[in-house]
């Protein structure tokens, strides 16, 4: 992975390399270099397969500079190597250039990201169609500031009498009563 990183580093302003495994590593780069880097990896380095495109919501990083992180994970089938390129995007009014012309499957990921995180990919085909949710009327549910529990309690009727027990102590009481 280091040889590849050095070759890429000569072309693009990459951040430092995070190695998860011997054949899996991640690097961050500025948004404007993402597309050339992906093209280079696909056409020159043999990373022909887009494994996934996903987002992370870094809500904790403070109100003014909190960000979305997009990860483009690519796979080199011949050499069994994976590299993930990460870009950071502002969290409000997020738009991103589509890569569906590089990998058609990206359109599906982008449609999902638009629905679940509210990240817009204006040129992506069918990106404004409903993907998983139907008739969603709140902020996108995978955003970290979306309160899932509150939404569930407000929206869906609940049967009374549901209680939660700690499995370990409960089973001790059940199996060995009076010996706790």
């Amino acid at each position, binding site marked *: 992975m280091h040889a590849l990183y050095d070759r890429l580093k000569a072309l693009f302003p990459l951040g430092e390399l995070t190695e998860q495994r011997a054949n899996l590593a991640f690097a961050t780069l500025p948004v404007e270099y993402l597309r050339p880097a992906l093209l280079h990896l696909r056409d020159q380095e043999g990373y022909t397969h887009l494994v996934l495109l996903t987002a992370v919501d870094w809500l904790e990083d403070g109100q003014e500079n909190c960000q979305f992180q997009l990860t483009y994970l690519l796979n080199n089938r011949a050499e069994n190597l994976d590299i993930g390129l990460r870009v950071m995007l502002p969290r409000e009014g997020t738009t991103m250039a589509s890569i569906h012309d590089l990998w058609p499957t990206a359109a599906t990921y982008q449609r999902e990201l638009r629905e679940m995180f509210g990240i817009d990919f204006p040129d992506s085909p069918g990106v404004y169609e409903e993907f*998983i949710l*139907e*008739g969603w009327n709140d902020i996108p549910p995978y955003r970290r500031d979306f309160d*899932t529990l509150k939404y*569930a309690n407000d*929206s*869906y*009727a*609940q049967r009374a009498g*549901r209680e939660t027990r700690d499995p370990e102590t409960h089973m001790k009481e059940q199996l060995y009563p009076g010996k706790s």
Partner: protein
Amino acid sequence: MKPELLKRMVKGPDGVEFEVEPMRDYYCDAPPTVQHGAYIKIVEDFFNWARAESLWILGFGTGCGAIEMRPLMTPRFDAYRYGIQWRPTPRQANLLVISGYLSTKTLKRAIRAYEQMQSPKYVVGLGSCTINGGMYWDSYNTIKCLDQYMPVDLYITGCMPRPEALLAGFEDLKKLIRAGKAEGANQYAERFDWYKANQKQVIHDWDMPDYNW
């Protein structure tokens, strides 16, 4: 509303243009009615015996519980020896097994499937998710209490209930039907407005008639 559901002019293969209004033309807009029992108890008991012995399940798996229905309908557990079998369409089924969690998106399809089944029809809720939400109790997209949206005749507890539990549950359902206590379809007709209000509260893009049959 989706464009294919809007009123529009359609040109047929013979060149004749005609108007199509899917929401009115494809469905009956009459609400369901209560089916009264036979005029004499012994006849009604005979009907109930016959109903109990012919359970036809709609092969519609809503959640992970559907995985337990595969060994049940195949030689390993073989539910067919109890006179229970699966059908591919709601028109041929009288038992809807809600097999696990129901997302609101699936709930819409389940309601349509249920309403298209012919009375007398029964609903079995399978697993914790249908009873109190189970492990999806805090999900943004999953209902937590099935009987708010559909009349449930029987719940089978467990996460997941094994095929043996399902078989025992179906035997219990037979007893309920024979005793004349499985009146879900009539309950649905009686409290139709209440069920519809509950359904519309969670299904925000309601793009179907109020009763689909």
